[in-house]
């Protein structure tokens, strides 16, 4: 064991290059054709299938599985893409056990669902690996639409609009498109640069241009977009991380989990990425798990996730929790941070109070404990970075929308995490972007709205 492995503090190179490579391989390797046929054969082709209902994008799952089973995986991919153009990413990151697979009647039959996510990946990977783009644009309409945010909602919206013959310009604050697909998801879920490859593939439809490093409120104003375009779609996500509201939060080694995840994704050489020996992750959602697991995979010796409510209220699915546990992450529930303890500007431990949930409210008890920490990640939810003055927000601080993403401002739509409603899932964002695009198209072209899926 190298000395670096047990070095205190935040250091790089805790593991060997081989160990890192093994740790960050594809967490769910793609199905081979034989595996796919076997898995597809298990689908019962249910009537009015519960899996379709459970999918926020309403993919016709029994149909695409039957298409795989009958040897036409490309047709299966088209069934998926018609409902969900980011079906490739969703196949990798969807919490399927809470969605399609959780609803699969095989769960009742033998507690083992049809492997819908894996089959979706099988179909979509196959088609995306081929030359060209499978959708054709309609005749040009001459309409121009601004999409702000190149995350799942914005990309989905842009593709649907481009397909209908509109010209779309996507603005994104970051250096690369993809949003959380590129910056906010564990590396082992989307290996080999899939997020960028998917954006490039999606752009293959034509009629979409992306302008990166253009942030709303910094480089752009909503007013200018309204003036320059026929419609605006906001898919700007939630740029700010909620505060712990605990003493010591400002220490240098108390960081946002999403930043850590983003840094890891953008890091060319994991050997150079520093990680603490004792890492504490505060939060119970997918982001918390992605940060905690990757901290372990980078070589952190002790990684503890602490969530203030009960285990069944965690945002992370059971599958995610099990995955974290299998990677050696310790999960503590029913405890909330009260103070980060440290020296100068440097955290050394986090003090937690056990909580009691009374009528839905979390109360701190006098029962305390401390966790040693040389690195603390906050993953306790995100919020809109800068409220947009003109837009009506909901009580929870998100953009208020009605119907398919209509905001309080005429010709401005919103979807994805920044908009009220939904589950802050990639797949929900895709559905909202798509549905807003249908609504925008209907409004601009004077057509009745048709929501697919």
């Amino acid at each position, binding site marked *: 064991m190298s000395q670096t492995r047990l070095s205190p503090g935040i250091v790089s190179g805790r593991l060997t290059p081989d160990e890192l490579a093994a740790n960050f391989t594809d967490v769910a390797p793609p199905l081979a054709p034989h595996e796919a046929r076997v898995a597809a054969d298990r689908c019962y082709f249910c009537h009015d299938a519960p899996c379709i209902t459970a999918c926020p994008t309403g993919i016709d799952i029994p149909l695409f599985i039957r298409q795989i089973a009958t040897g036409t995986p490309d047709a299966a991919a088209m069934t998926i893409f018609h409902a969900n153009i980011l079906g490739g990413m969703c196949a990798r990151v969807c919490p399927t056990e809470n969605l399609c697979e959780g609803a699969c009647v095989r769960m*009742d039959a033998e507690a083992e669902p049809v492997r819908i996510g894996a089959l979706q990946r099988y179909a979509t990977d196959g088609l995306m690996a081929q030359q060209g783009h499978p959708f054709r644009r309609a005749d040009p309409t001459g309409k121009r639409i601004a999409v702000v945010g190149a995350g799942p909602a914005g990309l989905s919206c842009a593709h649907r609009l481009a397909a209908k013959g509109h010209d779309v310009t996507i603005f994104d604050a970051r250096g690369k498109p993809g949003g959380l697909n590129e910056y906010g998801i564990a590396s082992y879920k989307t290996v080999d640069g899939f997020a960028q490859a998917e954006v490039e593939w999606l752009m293959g439809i034509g009629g979409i241009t992306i302008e990166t490093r253009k942030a709303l409120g910094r480089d752009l104003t909503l007013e200018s977009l309204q003036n320059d375009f026929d419609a605006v779609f906001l898919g700007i996500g939630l740029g700010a991380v909620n505060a712990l509201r605990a003493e010591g939060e400002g220490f240098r080694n108390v960081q946002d989990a999403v930043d850590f995840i983003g840094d890891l994704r953008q890091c060319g050489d994991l050997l150079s990425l520093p990680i603490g020996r004792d890492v504490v992750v505060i939060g119970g959602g997918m982001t918390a798990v992605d940060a905690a697991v990757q901290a372990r995979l980078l070589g952190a010796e002790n990684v503890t996730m602490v969530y203030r409510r009960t285990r069944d209220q965690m945002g992370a699915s059971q599958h995610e929790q099990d995955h974290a546990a299998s990677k050696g992450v310790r999960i503590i529930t029913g405890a909330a941070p009260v103070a980060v303890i440290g020296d100068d500007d440097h955290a050394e431990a986090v003090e937690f109070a056990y909580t009691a949930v009374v009528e839905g409210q979390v109360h701190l008890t006098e029962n305390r404990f401390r966790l040693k920490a040389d690195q603390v990640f906050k993953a306790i939810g995100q919020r809109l970075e800068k409220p947009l003055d003109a837009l009506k927000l909901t009580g929870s601080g998100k953009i208020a929308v009605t119907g398919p993403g209509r905001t309080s401002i005429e010709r401005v739509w919103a979807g994805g995490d920044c908009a009220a409603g939904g589950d802050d899932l990639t797949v929900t964002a895709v559905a909202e972007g798509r549905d807003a695009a249908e609504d925008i198209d209907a409004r601009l072209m004077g057509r009745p709205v048709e929501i697919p899926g």
Partner: protein
Amino acid sequence: MTDLRSDFVGIKSPNPFWLASAPPTDKEYNVRRAFQAGWGGVVWKTLGSEGPPVVNVNGPRYGVIHGPDRRVLGLNNIELITDRPLEVNLREIKSVKRDYPDRALIISLMVPCDEDSWRDILKRIEDTGADGVELNFGCPHGMSERGMGSAVGQVPEYIEMVTRWVKQYSRMPCIVKLTPNITDVRKPAEAAKRGGADAVSLINTINSITSVDLDLFAPQPTIDGKGAHGGYCGPAVKPIALNMVAEIARHPETRGLPISGIGGITTWRDAAEFMALGAGNVQVCTAAMTYGFKIVQEMISGLRDYLDTHDMALSDLIGRAVPNVTDWNQLNLNYVTKAVIDQDACIKCGRCYAACEDTSHQAIAMRPGRVFEVIEEECVACNLCVDVCPVEDCITMRELAPDETDLRTGIPRGGYANWTTHPNNPMSKAAE
């Protein structure tokens, strides 16, 4: 523990499971391994006349129909009779029989349809020690083009003639193997009986094209771009075989003629079904070709277990279901059942609903929460819901109690009455 020893037309074997005449029984090596695995008997792959042996194609001989997970449901072949010299086969048969005197060893034969050919071949096999002969009047491909196999089996007069020759020139038990590629299997069975056959065995394979290669536009198996029909066998043909066995078992002219049941037997249960319909023993091929010889061990333990639990001897099973095979016009039209869905067992897939709503009698309702309920007022008891339900015993058919009113017709259930007496039957009126 139930005794599975079998005596079929005087041929004794430790169990009623024989391997049918086919590739698995083509040579000594295979047959020895089969006997080691526990097979009660073997019908040696069909021998032809002396002289240069037949030749087989050098491309694929088999086509297949797969079920889920590539389970072999049906197999089709274009292989001919043995392509090895007669004397080699005879020597091997003798050697195997000498080492396995307790096992049944039958020789399948197919020679041209003339008396000399049959007399000669029977003479050649005389001193092999074999227990009997099976006349291959069944193979529907290749040999039939040369006036043998099913070309004989399709003409009852030929069957009778050849059988008579065989009985004349041999003292061995004679089993006539029938082709299913005919209209009424009772006719060839009658002919075999008239000719003096000790038994019939059925079915041989069914004329078939298993699939078409959609790139080559040729039937499969494809030999250099062309395909010929082959003989179909395996689980898919079992229902056809069962019916033919039952037809012979219950036909007044052939009743009591021993039957060796063949056709898609894959498990002990399949075997038991054939025997219940009148087969005195069974022959297996496709299952062994799919899984190897070891499957006989499951067949032996399964049949024994069944007979033990039902306190039956093997002879009690044979033919036990024959009296219950009848004509449609004898079925009780006052027997009424209704589908019942076990809500606890239901996994809510809705297949029963789709099947009934789209293709049957709209007798299943889909209630909120995906609760599926039978509408007795519409249910004609067709059983389709039972058949498509993926959960065993989730949907069952409930028999109405005597005098209970059928909610569909509003008529209380009556006693036995069949079509011959039904008022809608013009013939029943004529009989008055």
